[in-house]
């Protein structure tokens, strides 16, 4: 019965959501790889990008997107210099709680900026034409879905090439697998971290561009809920490696897209409980991540 309701439209929308969440997962995973820091404030980078798009919505679309990327990358670098750098080597709890505080701070600032015109929310409308459907093989698909999937695939491919083929990419991978040894062998810590932070910023800007097409009303809590879901997906997938984290992000986006589209609304009231019960089950069975294979000791010695 459930499968019968899964039409092509729902399937493609879920793929689109999965693609966006995969990009967020990469952004969170890249920074975690080199800094061992879970950046809860990642969603506020997306939010800042979305506000930039809203405030520049009377500019030509390309300029607006350029401004969005510029602002988000600058904010991402500022976060690294002002917050992540002093926290290097602190316990994960301290780093995570500090990024909560940064997340609150950015939301509070956004609220003040937003309320200058006395109404909550700004509209980012320059790309809403992408919501129009196109017909593929007899089924209607929104253009933004195709764009999301295309952008995500392109960005992931480009990222894979960057990490695999360039020197800085090699250094980043080395730093992600063992930071101290990598530094001993001449990898410059600040450079690989800046590299990862800039990449994460670019990805957040792309996410902002694609999310505002579906949700043009930008508020201070824009992307907050999505960040939480992606974080869950990243840990369930396996945060220690970039590709398992990405797959985790994609999976949770795709699954929530399918379930939301398929189940009738009166049946979805306990859906969050069911999904999170599943999350607990997966974590109990595979604490290192659903897609992370290989044995681990009960307590890590290092």
């Amino acid at each position, binding site marked *: 019965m459930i499968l019968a309701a899964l039409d092509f439209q729902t399937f493609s929308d879920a793929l689109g959501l999965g693609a966006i969440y995969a990009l967020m997962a990469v952004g969170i995973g890249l920074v975690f790889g080199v800094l061992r820091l879970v950046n809860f404030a990642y969603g506020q980078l997306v939010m800042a990008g979305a506000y930039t798009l809203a405030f520049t919505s009377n500019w030509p679309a390309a300029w607006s997107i350029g401004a969005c990327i510029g602002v988000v990358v600058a904010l991402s670098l500022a976060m690294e210099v002002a917050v992540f750098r002093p926290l290097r080597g602190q316990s994960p709890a301290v780093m995570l709680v500090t990024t909560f505080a940064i997340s609150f701070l950015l939301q509070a600032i956004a609220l003040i900026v937003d309320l200058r015109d006395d109404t909550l929310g700004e509209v980012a409308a320059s790309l809403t034409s992408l919501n129009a459907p196109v017909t593929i093989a007899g089924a209607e698909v929104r253009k933004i879905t195709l764009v999301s999937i295309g952008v995500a695939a392109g960005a992931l491919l480009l990222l894979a090439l960057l990490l695999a083929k360039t020197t800085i990419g090699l250094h980043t991978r080395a730093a992600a697998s063992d930071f101290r040894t990598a530094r001993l062998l001449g990898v410059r810590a600040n450079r690989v971290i800046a590299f990862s932070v800039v990449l994460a910023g670019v990805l957040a800007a792309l996410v902002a561009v694609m999310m505002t097409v579906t949700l043009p009303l930008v508020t201070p809590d824009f992307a907050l809920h999505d960040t939480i879901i992606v974080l869950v997906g990243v840990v369930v997938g396996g945060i220690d490696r970039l590709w398992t984290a990405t797959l985790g992000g994609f999976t949770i986006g795709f699954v929530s897209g399918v379930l939301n589209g398929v189940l009738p609304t009166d049946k979805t009231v306990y859906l969050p409980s069911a999904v999170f019960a599943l999350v607990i089950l997966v*974590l109990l069975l595979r604490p290192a991540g659903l897609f992370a294979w290989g044995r681990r000791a009960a307590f890590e010695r290092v």
Partner: protein
Amino acid sequence: MTRRLDVVVQLAGPLLLVVAVGLFSTTVSPSNEVYFLNSLVSVAIVVSIYVFIGNSGVLSFGQISFVAVGAFASGVMTVPLESKQGVLTTLFPLLRDHTIGNVPSLALAAALGGLFAFVVGLPLMRLNGLAAGIATFAVLEITHNVLQQWTKIGPGATTLSLVPESTGPLQGTLGAIVVIVVAFAYQRSRFGRQLRASREDAAAAAGVGVGVHLQRLVAFTLSGALAGFAGGLLVHQLGSITTDQVYLELTFLTLAMLVIGGATSLWGAVVGALAVSGLDSFLSQAEQGVHVLGHRLDLPSGTRLVFLAAIMALVLILRPTGLTGGRELRLPRWGK
């Protein structure tokens, strides 16, 4: 001799602070009393969280679930019968047709919080690090979802109101004292010491015979019971409550209080809770204009959250071990 004095100071310091706040709350106007009661309840919640996170070193985002269970159990059971049958009509008959007193409702909150934590902790205490964090977060999500939807056990998505406001200065102070004393007794007990050993080095502790999972379960259950009790205090302070008030924001705020104070000591939990809630109260007063040292301080509205978040971030960046450095209170030593 000195050692015994140290122990006395470690317990007396937090207690004196709480008593001072409680006494002070009786000297201010009723409209300001709420700030002091808030901070007393915050102390109870943060110390209950500390019992698990501080002693075990395992991150949990789930302790507010137990606060929520305690708050709603205690709240639903103390709404006066005559109004209850009018507003909470969908409840199970057992809950709808009975009402209990203030103190029994706090005991019920503690019992349910502890029971819930034990059931949840049984499977979850095997997890470490981020997996533990996300799994306990999932518990919070499930608790919130069920409390918001299941109208047979509570008000569902509507506000639970008409709860007797029995948490005044006396009950707030006594409640915080009970939580602190239990937390202190636990951390000095055999169980507490074993768990703290596992926090420093889980493998070494397991090697000398500490049952790490069992000790974590003990702390998790105790923390759940105290959190349930604190939830009871909270609902009796507010008088009305929604499920969103015991959810993400409270989780982040109380965790921030714990880490800012210094997560590895009871003194840190108490200082963090009082410092952050005090700062919050001061800033919300300053938004309406307040006199400080002869100057009038008038913050534009909306800046309270900016200042609060910025100061929290600054403390964490400049002093990551918290205001107390994660140490218990001790007298300064001379000649050594």
